[in-house]
């Protein structure tokens, strides 16, 4: 097991740390950088709770070997707000009750952010497709769909 210097950006800030071969991005974020907003629900890529953006694309951070993000830019739920102002999705999720226990919420928000960045006015079916990899056990997804639609419409009106 060798150690490597990992140099990457997290939420707009440069980070350099020593990681082993097997260290996952999820472990680096939660344990080394104490960015505990990103959750783990299964550690094997089945639940979506650990979703973060790597170079604006959603990935399951429990399945990403940390060294793979060398030189990349990673965004977690802590980095969704811009200059302290919450993302439209964060406000809409809160406002419409899209979070109950809240455990899937960070991953869900990152998947939704990637979806809206790619497709600013998605249909409900496109939202379903975009969030299909993120399991939620509380809400039945309905208020999540509504929140994504609300955030998209507010973004459009802005």
């Amino acid at each position, binding site marked *: 097991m060798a150690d490597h210097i990992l140099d990457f950006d997290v939420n707009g800030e440069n980070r350099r740390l020593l990681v082993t071969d097997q260290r996952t991005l999820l472990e680096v974020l*939660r344990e080394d950088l*104490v*960015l*505990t*907003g*990103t*959750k*783990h*629900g*299964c*550690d*094997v890529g*089945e*639940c979506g*709770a650990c979703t973060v953006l790597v170079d604006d694309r959603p990935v399951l951070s429990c399945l990403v070997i940390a060294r793979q993000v060398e030189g990349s830019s990673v965004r*977690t*739920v*802590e980095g*969704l*707000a811009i200059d302290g102002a*919450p993302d439209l*999705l*964060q*406000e809409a*999720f*809160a*406002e*419409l*009750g899209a*979070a*109950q*226990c*809240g*455990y*899937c*919420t*960070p991953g869900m*928000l990152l998947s939704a952010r990637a979806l809206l960045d790619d497709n600013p006015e998605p249909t409900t079916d496109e*939202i*379903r*497709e975009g*969030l*299909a*990899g*993120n*399991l*939620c*056990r*509380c*809400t*039945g*997804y*309905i*208020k*999540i*769909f509504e929140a994504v639609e609300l955030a998209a419409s507010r973004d459009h009106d802005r």
Partner: protein
Amino acid sequence: MSGAFSVVGERLPRVDAMDQTMGKTQYVDDMTLPGMLVGRHLTSIHAHARILSIDTSRAEALVGVHAVITGADLPITYGILPISQDEHALAVGRVRYVGEPVAAVAAINPEIAEQALALIDVSYEPLDEVVTLEQALETDHPMLHGDGLGQNVHRSAALEFGDVEEGFARADYVREDVFFFGGNTHAALETHVALASYSQTGKLTLWSSTQVPHYVHRTLEKVLELPAGRIRVIATAIGGGFGGKTDPFSHELTAAKLSMVTGRPVKINLSREEVFYAHRGRHPVLMWVKTGFENNGQITSMHFKTFLDGGAYSSYGVASLYYTGALQTTTYRIPNYRFEGLRVFTNKPPCGPKRGHGTPQPRFGLECHLDKAAADLGLDPVTIRQVNAVEPFSTTVNHLRITSCALVECIDKVVEASDFTVKRGRLPSGRGVGLAVGAYMSGAGLPIYFNDMPQSEVQIKIDRGGGVTVYSMATDIGQGSTTMLATVVAEALGLEPRDINMVIADTDLTPVDLGSYSSRVTFMAGNAAVTAGAKIRSRVVQAVADELGVDPAQVVTKGGRVGVSGDLDRCVTWAEAVRLAIAATGPLVESGGYTAPKLAGTFRGAGVGISPAYSYSACVVEVDCAADTGLVKVERVWLAHDIGRALNPLLTEGQVEGGVYMGLGEALYEEHTFRGGLHRGPSLLDYKIPTALDMPPVETFLVESDDPEGPLGAKEVGQGPLLPVIPAVANAIHDALGVRIDEVPITPQKIVAALRNVSRGRPGRIGPETIPDFEFSRLTRVEPPEGFVTP
């Protein structure tokens, strides 16, 4: 009526919603303490085996390992129910299911902890496995709890209310059916996590993702032999529960013990696979129901038998057993009723309470059975339910007191909104609609252990600056109990819910609430908060009335001000009002408690099913089924729920939608299945829960029946809405394809098999044919309650 409220009835977000969406909510696994060690469990690879020896010496010698413990270190048994204390934190002498914890280690990191587990040498002598209900009833297998060979019966129940045979004798039509409900599990997104820290002063603190800090506190006291006052249990934010975090669990005890042994904090985070073994989910239930009807559909008599496959330990099993027979009478007037139930032990993970605890299984059977009877009687599904619907403020034959009840209104709402009567039997082939109803308790009427103390206590403390802090042990598992408490207190004091500081679920700081189970929190903690809030309000109002020289009856608390009703200029700010009250009458600290009325009859089993109020639900499901593949697409769900009063319609709607979601998963996809004693798929890939692609639109109707004893009229919503969903799906599939799948989950294979039966001229039914020939002994005959009127 809702015009009388200022924040109650508003669609306000959870008080912690922005923390949740900003990623700031702290769950146990987000915590780190200085010097913290990682704990891991070694689990059984056998479904049933004697433990001949455990050698931990190689593991203990590994550098980085700080402690290894086994069952010998935690010899005291425990269990959630006082009558069935049959669990050990780590197996002692015998393992009874694959995945049962056998030893625990604490090490400096996960890698070394895993290596240490591999160095523990356990010598097993495999025993004959008992994995099915049938095997459990045979006499030539080892008894799981006890020595030698014999039946593995945990508990049986046999109760008769009224005269069932007389009821059948006067029936125009009698029907029998057999159903099976597959076992399934909670699968909360957060796995179970516990962090324990034992201080130099001999104080143990445990942070845990538990729904029941009070019961965990009691269990730690018993098993660790520490005084209760030296133990502090804190339930942090909880990433979903659904009943899956309602028992005391091994890892809570082993983390605590490892911390006591090592003198360092220890965190144990169960893997997703271990959560499937910790289980306590829905019991598989085989059931038989026989009902007598008059020609107009009125029920004359019912006999219900249930057979529960309980898994390896008791857990809530005795309660689960009685629940499979208790609530049939809460929706339909059944003048004569016999319930016989049996729970067996098998070498599988223990079953327990999952959303609806023991009632979704019989509800599925009953609602399908009623549809079949209606068809034979030439009645439609709506009529047979209306004819039998219980009356508000009545008593059931099995001694359950019904108060507010809007069952008929709920049926009317969904039938009308869905065009059920127009659609049923008339949609194109493959499409169909189904109707079902359900009822659930607003809290179990009795605490788990016998006592006469309040079931919930709430304290409110007011700061001199006007800050309001509410203390409650009620755990917010996502259902919104913290927001509910803030809302009722804010309503009393004329503030906003977000103005209220909430201190929750900490046995050192908060007064007892029994926990988030049996849908009890809104009713019980809510009532305690209403009482405490009214006391604070009354003192503040009196002080302001004295200051302004008016009658207290004229003073209102609204919008952060306290003043004269209708005269906006004559008021003081909330903060000033508080200072006046403290100056006049001393510290502004008040408490409220809630104790449910004494409702239990005197017969054995009378404690299960009683509740201060019942919620009611009705559901219509529309499906589109592919006859060639058996795939079912749920097109839409209509659900009406009698909630008494929606304290926050946004959050209560969310509970309905979540209940519908979980019900659909149980109806169509989810099942715990085993090959021998081995779980077939202990992962979220193999255990299929519905995704965003599977969820249909849901139309929710909140019906407000204003319960006389509910907090501001409210009743439960967390569990009830799930109940009618599962049979409504089954009834819709029958309407769509003409086949009856009398067991859940209703998989495509079963539908295709039923259709194949039809094409071969056989009945289009898939489901169990018979029940075990078990002789229920000691039938308890109970007279109907005084004043019970036979319909």
